[in-house]
C-alpha cells in the first residue's frame, strides 16, 4: 500500500482583500465577501509562476521528508497555468530539486484536480514497484478576467506530495468519478477561462464530489462520522461547507483544511494545500478523507490513515507561512499579475 512520505507547500506573500476588488467594480465588498465566504486571496509576485511555486513546494517536501531526491522516479505537475504551452514545468522542478536525470516527468491538466491525478499515478507506480518515490504537485497562478466573478477568488499557491512505500500516512484507497461536464474551460490561446455560472454548482462540483466521496466511503466501509478530518476542493468558502453537510460531515472535521477564506482558490493547489494543512496537525491514527474536483469534470477521492511516523516528521506549519503576508491595492495587483501590456 502506498503512503505519503512527505509534503511541502508554498503560498505567495502578497494578498488582496475581496473588498478591494469589489471597490473597483462598484460592488458591495462585504456582501461579496460573505456571499463567497472568502475574505482575501493570495497574489503571485511579478516573478512568480506555476514553476516557481512548484519548485518551492517541492523543495519544502524534500527537505521535510529527508529523502534523497535522486530516488524520486516520477514527477507530475498538475496545473491549468503552466508557464509554457509546450515545455514541461515538471522538468524545471526535477532539475531544481536535483532529481534528474533518471526519472519520468510530465505535466498534467485537468482544471483543479490535475495535482491529485498526479498523486494517483504516483500511487500506481509505487504500488506496482516501478519506482521508489513519486512526487505529485498541484500548483496554479489562477487566471481570471478583470471584473469576472472568478476575480474575487482566483489565487496562487501549491503543494507537493512525495508518495512511497513507507511514510507518515497510508493511502488506504483512491477512486475517481469522471464525466464530460463542460462547466469551466479555457480555450487555446485565450488568457482567461470561461465558465457556466451557476451550472458549475449542482451538476458539476456537487455531483462529482458527493459521488466520489460516497463511492469511496462505501468501498472502504467508512461513514462520515468515522473520519477525523475531511478536505474538499475549495472554489470558494461556501461550496466545501455545503458539500460537507450534504455528506454528513460536521464543520469541525473540515475547518482545519479550509484555506479558501484566507488565500482564495488555488485551483490545482486547493485540495492538496488543504490536505497538507491537515497533516500539519494530524496525530497517529487520524483518518482523513480528501476529495478534489476538477471542472470538465471529475473528482479524485483519497482515504488516508496517519501513522506513528508523523510524530518525527518536520512539519512545515503552513498556516504560519500564510500569516506572513503583505496587502496590495488593485493597481499593484494588476501590475503583479502582468496585466499592464
Amino acid at each position, binding site marked *: 500500500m502506498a503512503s505519503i512520505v512527505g509534503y511541502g507547500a508554498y503560498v505567495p*506573500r502578497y494578498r488582496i482583500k475581496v473588498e478591494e476588488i469589489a471597490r473597483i467594480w462598484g460592488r458591495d465588498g462585504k456582501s461579496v465577501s460573505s456571499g463567497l465566504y472568502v475574505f482575501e486571496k493570495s497574489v503571485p*509576485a*511579478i*516573478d*512568480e*509562476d506555476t*514553476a*516557481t511555486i512548484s*519548485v*518551492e513546494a517541492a*523543495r519544502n517536501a524534500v527537505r521535510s521528508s529527508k529523502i534523497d531526491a535522486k530516488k524520486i522516479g516520477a514527477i507530475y505537475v498538475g496545473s491549468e497555468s503552466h*508557464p*509554457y504551452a509546450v515545455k514541461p514545468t515538471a522538468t*524545471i522542478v526535477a*532539475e*531544481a530539486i*536535483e532529481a534528474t536525470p533518471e526519472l519520468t516527468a510530465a505535466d498534467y491538466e485537468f482544471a483543479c484536480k490535475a495535482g491529485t491525478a498526479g498523486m494517483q499515478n504516483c500511487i500506481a507506480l509505487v504500488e506496482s514497484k516501478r519506482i521508489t518515490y513519486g512526487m505529485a504537485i498541484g500548483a496554479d497562478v489562477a487566471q481570471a478576467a478583470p471584473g469576472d466573478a472568478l476575480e474575487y477568488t482566483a489565487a496562487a499557491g501549491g503543494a507537493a506530495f512525495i508518495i512511497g512505500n513507507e511514510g507518515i500516512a497510508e493511502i488506504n484507497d483512491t477512486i475517481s468519478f469522471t464525466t464530460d461536464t463542460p462547466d469551466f474551460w479555457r480555450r487555446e490561446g485565450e488568457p482567461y477561462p470561461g465558465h457556466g455560472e451557476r451550472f458549475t454548482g449542482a451538476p458539476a462540483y456537487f455531483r462529482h464530489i458527493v459521488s466520489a466521496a460516497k463511492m469511496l466511503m462505501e468501498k472502504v466501509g467508512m461513514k462520515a462520522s468515522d473520519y477525523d478530518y475531511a478536505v474538499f476542493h475549495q472554489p470558494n468558502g461556501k461550496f466545501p461547507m455545503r458539500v460537507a453537510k450534504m455528506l454528513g460531515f460536521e464543520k469541525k472535521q473540515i475547518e482545519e483544511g479550509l484555506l479558501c477564506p484566507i488565500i482564495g482558490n488555488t485551483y490545482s493547489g486547493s485540495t492538496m494545500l488543504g490536505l497538507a494543512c491537515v497533516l500539519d496537525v494530524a496525530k497517529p491514527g487520524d483518518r482523513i478523507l480528501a476529495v478534489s474536483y476538477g471542472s470538465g469534470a471529475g473528482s479524485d477521492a483519497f482515504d488516508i490513515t496517519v501513522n506513528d511516523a508523523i510524530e518525527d516528521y518536520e512539519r512545515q506549519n503552513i498556516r504560519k507561512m500564510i500569516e*506572513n503576508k*503583505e496587502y496590495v491595492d488593485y493597481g499593484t495587483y494588476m*501590475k503583479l499579475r*502582468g496585466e*499592464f501590456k
Partner: protein
Amino acid sequence: MGVPRYWREIPSRYNLIGKKCGVCGKIYFPPRSICPTCRRKSAGKMEDYKLDGKGTVESFTIIRVPPPEFEGKSPYAIALIKMDEGCYLTGQIVDCNLDDIHIGMRVEACFRRIQEDGKRGAIYYGYKFRSLKS
C-alpha cells in the same frame, strides 16, 4: 541571454552549485575551473560545491530605471550578498518592502523567474533572495 548559455548554467542558477578548490578549500561562485590562488596545483581538483543559500547583504541599490528586459518590474533591489561560505553573489531581493532592506540583513535564496526572451522566447529561472526569518 540565449538558451545555450542558460542551459549550461542551470546547475548554478537553480541550485547554487559552485566550486571548491581541492587544494586550499576556497569556495567559488560562479564555478571556476582553476583556483586563482593555487593555479596549476588546483587543476583537476576543483570539486562541485553546493552553497547553502544563506547570506548577508553587504550592499544594495534600488533600480528605478531598469534595462529594457526588466521594464514594468521596477522598482526592485539588487544586492551584493556575502554567502555564509565566504563567496559573493549579486541578486535581486524580493518579497520585501524596499524600505526594510538594509546592510547586514540576513537573506536566503529562493527560486524565481529572472527574465524571458519576449513573449515567444524561453523563460529563464534562477535564484533571487528573500529575508531570512529567524
